[in-house]
């Protein structure tokens, strides 16, 4: 069965006056059809850049190496005109801040309809009708009126629904959601996650959910991939990660998730130290400076990703839990 997305040894470098910055280092992960994979990590972990590379949206001056296969076809390094055959139709992405992600001077209806007009041979009128249905699908009230409005006339939550509708128009096989709720209020967050859940059930599409919030991801993902310092450090089924996390970093992340069921704590747990900067050279394990379990070996030898405790469970650690 061809995976929806197969990333193999992806590395992303940015050229800089003082040398190259490695945002992503040899990351590999797979997304099966209709599967939801959560990607978790701090800012700077490389989680966003990985998928920018997948979508061909890296900024100028960035170089990607490795292999990215979408439904079996290699898409890394494709020319824009080639990539656009799947990009936006079968392989879509929604972004973190709906406020700035929509074009301010175009009406919502146009921004939706143009996807269909570009990718299928629909006329503008047919596309607008489809856009209306898409808005209703994501439960935008007064959808017909919204089509004629400009982005600044909608609330944040509604804008994000529009973004989701936009990404579903051509029935994608994979939707990448990069921190879709981070910029929204908590109540709105729940609504958006709900919509994603419903959409997934209705259409059998795979989802990649990128977030720094492990708790959020756990609510939707089948599998979770943890990234740190540009590398994948742990990858397992969602339940396994939550109950049998093997990498010390994941364990720390779990401790940080606020849980209303647990007794009240004096202080919220947090991770000491800072994420490694992408320009620093890698010596040993990137997490070692902050790891409570770090040993001599961790500082000099970089741990490789290997299977631990189960075929589906992988981690990169010398002293897994």
């Amino acid at each position, binding site marked *: 069965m061809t995976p929806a997305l197969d990333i193999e040894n992806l590395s992303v470098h940015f050229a800089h006056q003082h040398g190259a910055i490695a945002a992503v280092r040899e990351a590999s992960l797979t997304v099966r059809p209709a599967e939801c994979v959560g990607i978790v990590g701090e800012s700077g972990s490389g989680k966003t850049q990985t998928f920018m590379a997948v979508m061909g949206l890296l900024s100028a001056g960035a170089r990607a190496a490795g292999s990215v296969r979408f439904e079996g076809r290699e898409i890394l390094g494709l020319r824009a005109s080639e990539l656009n055959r799947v990009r*936006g139709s079968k392989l879509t992405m929604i972004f973190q801040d709906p406020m700035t992600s929509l074009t301010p001077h175009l009406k919502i209806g146009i921004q939706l309809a143009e996807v269909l007009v570009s990718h299928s041979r629909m006329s503008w009128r047919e596309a607008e009708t489809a856009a209306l249905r898409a808005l209703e699908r994501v439960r935008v009230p007064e959808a017909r009126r919204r089509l004629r409005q400009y982005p600044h006339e909608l609330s944040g939550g509604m804008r994000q629904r529009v973004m989701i509708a936009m990404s579903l128009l051509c029935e994608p096989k994979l939707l990448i959601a990069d921190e879709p709720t981070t910029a929204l209020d908590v109540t709105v967050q729940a609504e958006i996650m709900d919509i994603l859940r419903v959409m997934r059930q209705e259409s059998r599409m795979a989802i990649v959910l990128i977030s720094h919030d492990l708790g959020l991801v756990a609510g939707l993902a089948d599998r979770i991939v943890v990234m740190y310092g540009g590398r994948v450090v742990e990858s397992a089924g969602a339940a396994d990660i939550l109950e049998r996390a093997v990498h010390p970093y994941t364990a720390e992340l779990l401790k940080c998730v606020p849980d209303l069921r647990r007794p009240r704590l004096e202080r919220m747990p947090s991770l000491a130290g800072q994420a490694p900067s992408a320009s620093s050279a890698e010596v040993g394990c990137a997490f070692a400076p902050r790891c409570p379990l770090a040993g001599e070996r961790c500082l000099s030898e970089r741990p490789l990703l290997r299977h631990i405790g189960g075929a589906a469970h992988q981690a990169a650690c010398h002293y897994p839990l």
Partner: protein
Amino acid sequence: MVRYFIKRLAGAVPTLLIIVTAAFFLIRAAPGGPFDQEQTLPAEIVANLQAAYGLDLPIWAQYGRYLRALAHGDFGPSFKYRDFTVTELIGQGFPVTLRIGAIALILALGLGLPLGTYAALHHHAAADHAAMSLAVVGIAVPSFVVLPFLGLVFGIYLHWLPVAGWEPGSIRHLVLPVIALCLPPLSIIARMTRGSMLEVLRSQYIRTAFAKGLPLRIVILRHALRPALLPVAGYLAPAVASIMTGSLVVESIAGLPGIGRYLVQGALNRDYTLVMGMVIIYSALLIAMGLVVDMLYAWLDPRIRFGR
């Protein structure tokens, strides 16, 4: 939109009135009269001339007469070209100046925008550097150096185009003047477009547009162009001012019978009414451009229309 326009129009009229009034009183306050440059005339003749031109009336009466005449489109007689009224001279010259000015502006926009966009899309490539270097030259070198130089190369050495002169309806005579006129604003527009396009292309919504799989052409034309045009819209009024200033020199060198040349002649001959008439026309043009620009801004950015 319409209400906004009327509001702006109402603001423009007083400005024009102030200019006309200031011009009028400044002229009357000047030392010497319009006839001083002639050989000294006997006093009675001077008195007759003054009466004929209404210069013996009290100043408020003259002002009133002038305003009334203006309302009828009458700018008074030219003091130097005795057979013509200023209105007639304006009528003859304005179409010429308008034609070359408008063509120059259209060229500046029509060539500058694509050039700037192209440079932005090929940021850091050879084409970008070349275009921007040319732009610096276009901005720095004044039209009164460019036009004779063009005339030298294309007129005298290559014999392709006439160096100067004018025939009604002739296009060949307009080519070099229009080129010299449009080069500075073209260069500025190209530079500006490149800069603002680069900015816009870094926006999140452009990233969304690419993520939607839209072809580059559509991303630029539908999503990037309008916001990138905002600074250029702000430059339109100065562009017109620059073209108007340039037309003074270009018409004088190329011998085109436009109002620019009349203005210069009027200045050299101390022809009051002519100069005043020209200044009023130019000011009105500028104010009108300001209005157009404001309307353009409102169209380009819907947020302005809704009132901030």
